[in-house]
C-alpha cells in the first residue's frame, strides 16, 4: 500500500514540474538545440469578491445578463489576453496583417513592431482611416477607396484602435507587442485559462508577458533549457495594484 502511495506521489511531482515533458505533454518535444515555453494565463477576480449569482439568493440576476448595465467580467472566459515572448532569437521574417475596415472586428489582433498592416476596404464607400495609439498619438492612414488597400508599419508599441471619420466605432483593435515580429507565433491572443505553447525558441533567458485591454497584466522571466519545455504561469487581474485604504 505504501509503495502504491509512493508511486502516486512521484507521479504527481513529475506532472507538476516546471520543466520536462510534463509541462508540455500536449506539445511535441523540442529539438535538442531548441526550447519551448508553455504559458498559462489565469484571470483572477478581486480577492474577496463573491459572485452574487452563486452566493446571494435574493440577488436580481435579470440585470446582470449579457449586454445589460451590470454585466459582469467573466474571468473564467476572459478573451483578448495578448501573450508574447521575448527571447534572444527574434525572428528575422516579418508578417503582414490584413485588416478589412469594411468588416469591423472586435477581437484584438497582435503584431510586432516591424510587421505591416494591410488595411483594405471591401465595402462600397471610401473610408478615412486613422490609427489611435495608446500614447495618444494619432496617425492618418488616408482615405481607403472601395476595393483598395493601404499599408502601414506601426511606429509605436501598445494598444491601437483603427478608426474612421465615417464610423463611430473602432474598425479594428490591435496590440503592437515590443518584439520585432509576431511571426513564428511569438505573440498570440488567447482566452485566459488555456495553455499556449511557444516553440522553436533559443535556449537561455527569455521574458513572457500577458496584457489585457482592461485588466492589469503581468510578466515573468524564465530560463529556457535546450530540448525541454519550460512552464510559466501569468496572472491578469487587479490584485497586484497598490491598495487605497
Amino acid at each position, binding site marked *: 500500500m505504501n509503495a502504491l502511495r509512493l508511486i502516486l506521489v512521484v507521479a504527481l511531482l513529475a506532472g507538476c514540474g516546471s520543466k520536462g515533458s510534463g509541462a508540455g505533454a500536449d506539445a511535441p518535444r523540442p529539438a535538442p538545440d531548441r526550447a519551448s515555453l508553455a504559458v498559462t494565463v489565469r484571470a483572477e477576480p478581486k480577492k474577496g469578491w463573491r459572485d452574487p449569482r452563486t452566493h446571494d439568493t435574493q440577488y436580481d440576476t435579470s440585470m446582470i445578463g449579457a449586454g445589460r*448595465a451590470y454585466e459582469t467580467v467573466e474571468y473564467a472566459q476572459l478573451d483578448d489576453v495578448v501573450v508574447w515572448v521575448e527571447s534572444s532569437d527574434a525572428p528575422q521574417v516579418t508578417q503582414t496583417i490584413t485588416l478589412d475596415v469594411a468588416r469591423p472586428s472586435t477581437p484584438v489582433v497582435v503584431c510586432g513592431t516591424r510587421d505591416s498592416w494591410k488595411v483594405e476596404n471591401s465595402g462600397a464607400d471610401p473610408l478615412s482611416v486613422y490609427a489611435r495609439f495608446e500614447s495618444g498619438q494619432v496617425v492618418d492612414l488616408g482615405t481607403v477607396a472601395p476595393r483598395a488597400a493601404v499599408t502601414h508599419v506601426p511606429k509605436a508599441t501598445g494598444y491601437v484602435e483603427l478608426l474612421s471619420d465615417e464610423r463611430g466605432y473602432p474598425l479594428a483593435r490591435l496590440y503592437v507587442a515590443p518584439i520585432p515580429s509576431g511571426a513564428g507565433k511569438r505573440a498570440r491572443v488567447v482566452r485566459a485559462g488555456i495553455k499556449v505553447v511557444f516553440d522553436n525558441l533559443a535556449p537561455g533567458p527569455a521574458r513572457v508577458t500577458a496584457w489585457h485591454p482592461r485588466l492589469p497584466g503581468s510578466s515573468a522571466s524564465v530560463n529556457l533549457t535546450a530540448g525541454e519545455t519550460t512552464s510559466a504561469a501569468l496572472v491578469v487581474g487587479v490584485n497586484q*495594484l497598490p491598495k487605497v485604504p
Partner: protein
Amino acid sequence: MRRAMSLLLALWITAAAALPVNTFDRAATERATGAVAGRVTAATGKLPDMIVYLEPLDPSVALAPPDKVEVVSQKGAKFAPSLLVIARGQTVEFRNDEQRPIEHNVFSRSPSKPFDLGLFPPPDAKRVTFSDAGPVQLYCSIHRYMDGVIYVCPTPLFATVGPDGSFSIEHVPSGQWKLRTWQRSARFNDVEQTVRVEADGRATVNVEMKRG
C-alpha cells in the same frame, strides 16, 4: 566643520533646485485677472470631450490646486461624470451610490496613478489624491461596461472646449505659458503652443488640430 557646512550648502542647493520657487497659492491665482481664450478647429468633424490647459513655461512656477474635493459617483454601474478634469494635487471622492447592495471595485492601471479601491458597498466612499499629471482610466473589476477617465492637469488653469470649438481660461497669472490640448477619444494629435499673458491681459490662441 567646513565639511559639514559644505554638506549643508549642497543639501540646500539640491532642495532649492527641486522645489518651485514661484508658487501661486489659491488666493493669488483667484486674484489673477489674465485670461487665455480662443478657438480650436479641425478639418473634419467635432471635438467632443476635449480640454485645453496651461502649463508654465518656467518649471519653477507652481500653482496650488483647488481645495474642493471632486466626486465621481458609481450608480447604475456607471461612473458619473464619466470624464472629470482636475488639477494636480486635487482629491477625488469615489462614492458607491447604488440603490441596491451592489459592490464596486474601482481601479486604475494608468502609469500616472495605479490604484485599487478594493470592494466597497453603498453608501461607502473612498478618496484618492492625484499627484501626477496625465490621464487616469477608471474601471470596475466586477462590471464589464464601467469605464471613466480623470484627466489630471498640471495646473488648475484648464477649460473644456465648447461645441463650437471656443474656450476661455480665466484667472491666469501674467507670464509665459504652454497651452496644451487633450482629447478623451483622440481623433487628432494633441497640440502645444506658447502664449504670453500680460497682467490683466487677454491673450488669444487659435489651435488647428491635425493628424500625423
